[in-house]
């Protein structure tokens, strides 16, 4: 494994029971970069993140993170590796019984012996970084979708991870929150010297902030390149995806029998 790459996914296949999700996928994530994995719903993006995080093990192939094969690590080794990772979940996944402050302090209290005044300062710094130091007393139920995502982002960077993973960070956000989250992903990655993976199907927003893009369809990488290369790609799937065309290689209609037969009830 090259030292310049933090992650190397090599010939990985994965199936839920008998249903294949990833088929012989290969990708690398260089250190210090923001890399996006794009694709339609259900194409295996989140599964890929879970494989990198060690929540799933590949059926075939290997996932190397910081020189370690995630699928073969023992529970203790995996715990150690995960301490160097931060993850932003699709809906934030904030602990609903804890307020904003406690959510961010949670990991610090679990993994460090830092005295309370230092934890206080660190929590406030993380919240300040996402522009929410004034909201430290609020409960998750009192936050808007965008605010919850920002708090979750502050929690993901609580222990200054080397790798930050974002699972659909733009889903369900208004345009202002969308821009804020996008800028934060880029800013935090550069400020912390971290490496980021953004799993998303929000093309326009992510292309503004990422260094490299992998496009996944039907469990395989179908295209890759810089944001500009993806924008100007003439590959039918990439073109359809980037410009949001309703029909193309990804058909508008779900496969079915003949429509007229269905209407006339001949197949029922």
């Amino acid at each position, binding site marked *: 494994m090259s030292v310049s790459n933090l992650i190397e996914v090599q010939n990985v296949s994965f199936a839920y029971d008998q249903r294949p999700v990833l088929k012989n996928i290969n990708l690398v994530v260089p250190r210090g970069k923001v890399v996006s994995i794009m694709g339609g719903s259900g194409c295996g993006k989140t599964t890929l993140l879970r494989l990198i995080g060690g929540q799933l093990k590949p059926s075939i192939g290997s996932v190397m993170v910081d020189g370690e094969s995630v699928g073969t690590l023992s529970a203790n080794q995996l715990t150690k590796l995960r301490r160097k990772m931060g993850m932003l979940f699709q809906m934030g996944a*904030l602990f609903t019984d804890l307020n904003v402050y406690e959510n961010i302090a949670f990991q610090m209290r679990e993994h460090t012996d830092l005295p309370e005044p230092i934890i206080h300062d660190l929590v406030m710094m993380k919240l300040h970084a996402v522009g929410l130091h004034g909201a430290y007393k609020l409960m998750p139920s009192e936050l808007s979708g965008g605010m919850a995502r920002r708090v979750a982002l502050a929690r993901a960077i609580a222990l200054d991870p080397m790798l930050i993973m974002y699972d659909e960070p733009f889903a369900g956000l208004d345009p202002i929150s969308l821009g804020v989250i996008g800028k934060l992903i880029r800013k935090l990655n550069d400020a912390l010297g971290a490496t980021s993976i953004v799993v998303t199907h929000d093309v326009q927003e992510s292309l503004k902030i990422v260094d490299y893009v992998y496009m996944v369809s039907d469990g395989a990488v179908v295209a890759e390149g810089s944001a500009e290369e993806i924008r100007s790609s003439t590959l039918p799937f990439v073109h359809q995806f980037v410009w949001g065309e309703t029909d193309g290689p990804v058909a508008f209609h779900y496969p079915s029998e003949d429509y007229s037969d269905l209407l006339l009830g001949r197949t029922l």
Partner: protein
Amino acid sequence: MKAIIRVPALIGHYVNDRLWRLGFASRFLFMILIQSGTCLIRPRLVLREAYFIGVQSLIIILVSGMFVGLVLGLQMYDTLERFGSGEGVGTVVALALVRELGPVLSALLFASRAGTAVTAEIGLMKTTEQLSAMEMMAIEPVARVIAPRFWAGIISLPLLTSMFNVMGIFGGYLVGVLLLGVDEGIFWSQMQATVDFREDVLNGIIKSVVFAVAVILIAVFEGYNSPPTAEGVSSATTRAVVTSSLAILALDFVLTAFMFRGI
């Protein structure tokens, strides 16, 4: 012909499924025990859950205990008086409560009040990816979320059962002594002379500990394994209360047979 094959197949599938679940639950119990070190190092986690599981169940336990004692006092006095032994109402109420009704009814109430709350809470934590988030933070959810609730349940139910028994006996006293005029001295002295601490009280507490393990294990297991959807959490909660109730009644029969019939 098809029905002849289908019915045994369905029964076989059902039995197979139940056995698999029992196996998973046993493995889950083993995991909880292995991951319980955190609870020893940080007992505040258990105390916090004991507050939600135990202290917040106190009202329903106390009120139910009182009413059960009141009704038991009335029924027992009426029956005993036919044989001219109405003074024995205190003894009968106390024995019925400490041996049977206290542990069983407390456990049933506990399953419906605290067990369902635990299942729904853990199920929702799973649905909203809070458990996954914890896992990704290198924090084992079984150690941090499941084990404290498990031990809190085991500590809480025997204490709640004792409260239930005390309130029930007090209810019996109110009816027997204050309402129906049984002599106060006979009420308490007969009870003291007849109810044996080891044979009756301790066996009742052992029962409540066994019920606590069953109820709280079912509650955390169903919550942890619920499908991450609204319907999944709802079915898991229903399954938790139904399975717990049946487990309590079945275990009660087995324990009673061993404890009080000398099998």
